[in-house]
């Protein structure tokens, strides 16, 4: 999808070559904006383009006004749009249906009627970028005045569909630099290498693992212990290779243009504790959640109990962001609990000090525990809760 289409491959070549060939900054930016618009229209279609145009205009003018109330109102509109397109059916099913099936059915009909066939392309990503922008402007940051630059921030094609989630304060100087800089063979070679690495991760590793998982997961219970653990490893590496492969392609494409996108992964399966894991996994999302949910909630400034609760809320929302289903929320809460334990275990009477000593003495123990925890979490992420719990039990020989 998107990156794995012939249209995209041809589009990327043309967009990049022309961008590099144009001699003036304004022409380069104009061309890139046009290319991004064509890209978005091609993949999202007329119905999918409307929501982003509306939210983009709203965000642009709210930011330009620099009024706190306007920024807050636009942020609320972005969040409502995200909830509407992504979660309305889930919320109706979870919150209304238990009380009134009839009302839930009517609401679901209404929502389905009002929505396009599928959620707008990249809605989870661009709404987060808009909220970030409005939040920073509300805090006193400089708004983007040039509409072409704002358009490029909103629909920059390499990161539009699945991130990395950009920060405008980093993106704009990079765009400015790329618009004026001469051709860089370094960027071209390094970007191409990055794109190649991304495709290799996706097609040579992730897709092969998917094949293995699809064939073996239905027989999980009948497989021996070794086979079960092997499948867990396959599941863990499949998502890493798939998503980090995607990020590599996005970052590589941007680099060929001369633009830097934030990194998304830094060897997460090498992390020795859960905090480290989340500093290395989907970094652009984690830092967004930290800056715009966790810290505004109070972060770790109001005592350890609030810190744990804030973490649970932030990670519950992080889980929900991944999809409108209970098991995603549960996966987020699972990590929230894990992080809570990770942040507080040293304070626990008796056991805390002993465990802490073990981890200091044997760093490998921390690594094993962290990876075991995060890999088991993928079961919750990918499968319905009952299936995930059963599979987790079977990993330890529990029928």
């Amino acid at each position: 999808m998107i990156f794995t289409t012939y249209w995209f491959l041809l589009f990327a070549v043309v967009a990049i070559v022309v961008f590099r060939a144009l001699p003036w900054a304004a022409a380069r930016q104009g061309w890139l904006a046009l290319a991004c618009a064509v890209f978005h229209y091609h993949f999202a279609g007329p119905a999918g383009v409307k929501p982003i145009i509306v939210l983009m205009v709203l965000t642009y003018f709210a930011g330009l006004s620099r009024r706190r109330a306007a920024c807050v109102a636009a942020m609320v509109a972005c969040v409502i749009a995200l909830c509407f397109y992504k979660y309305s059916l889930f919320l109706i099913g979870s919150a209304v249906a238990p009380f009134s099936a009839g009302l839930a059915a009517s609401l679901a009909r209404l929502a389905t009627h009002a929505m396009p066939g599928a959620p707008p392309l990249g809605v989870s990503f661009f709404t987060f970028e808009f909220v970030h922008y409005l939040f920073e402007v509300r805090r006193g940051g400089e708004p983007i005045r040039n509409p072409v630059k704002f358009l490029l921030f909103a629909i920059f094609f390499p990161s539009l569909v699945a991130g990395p989630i950009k920060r405008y304060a980093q993106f704009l100087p990079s765009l400015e630099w790329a618009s004026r800089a001469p051709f860089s063979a370094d960027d071209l070679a390094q970007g191409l290498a990055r794109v190649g690495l991304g495709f290799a991760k996706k097609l040579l590793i992730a897709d092969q693992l998917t094949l293995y998982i699809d064939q073996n997961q239905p027989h999980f219970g009948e497989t021996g212990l070794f086979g079960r653990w092997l499948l867990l490893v396959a599941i863990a590496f499949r998502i890493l290779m798939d998503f980090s492969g995607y990020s590599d392609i996005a970052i590589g494409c941007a680099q060929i243009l001369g633009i830097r996108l934030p990194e998304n992964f830094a060897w997460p399966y090498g992390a020795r504790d859960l905090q480290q894991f989340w500093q290395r996994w989907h970094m652009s999302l984690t830092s967004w959640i930290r800056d715009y949910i966790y810290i505004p909630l109070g972060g770790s400034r109001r005592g350890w109990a609030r810190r744990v609760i804030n973490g649970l809320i932030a990670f519950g929302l992080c889980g929900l962001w991944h999809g409108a289903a209970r098991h995603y929320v549960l996966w987020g809460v699972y990590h929230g609990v894990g992080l809570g334990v990770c942040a507080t275990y040293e304070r626990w009477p008796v056991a805390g000090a002993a465990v802490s000593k073990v981890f200091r003495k044997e760093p490998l123990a921390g690594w094993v525990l962290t990876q075991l925890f995060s890999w088991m979490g993928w079961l919750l992420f990918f499968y319905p809760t009952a299936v995930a719990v059963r599979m987790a039990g079977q990993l330890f020989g529990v029928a």
Partner: protein
Amino acid sequence: MNTLNRWAGRLPAPLRPILASALSLLAGLAVALVLHYVLYRVGLPSKPFIYVSF
């Protein structure tokens, strides 16, 4: 990568540019292989990127 850099740092100075060039050529060949394979695989049924659906 740091380990690699450290290891490369231990090589005699005249060898370093030769090694870097050879590795770069190999990397280019490898990327060519991947991109050619991509052109083939794009036309075949394939699982979409997981995160695109989020």
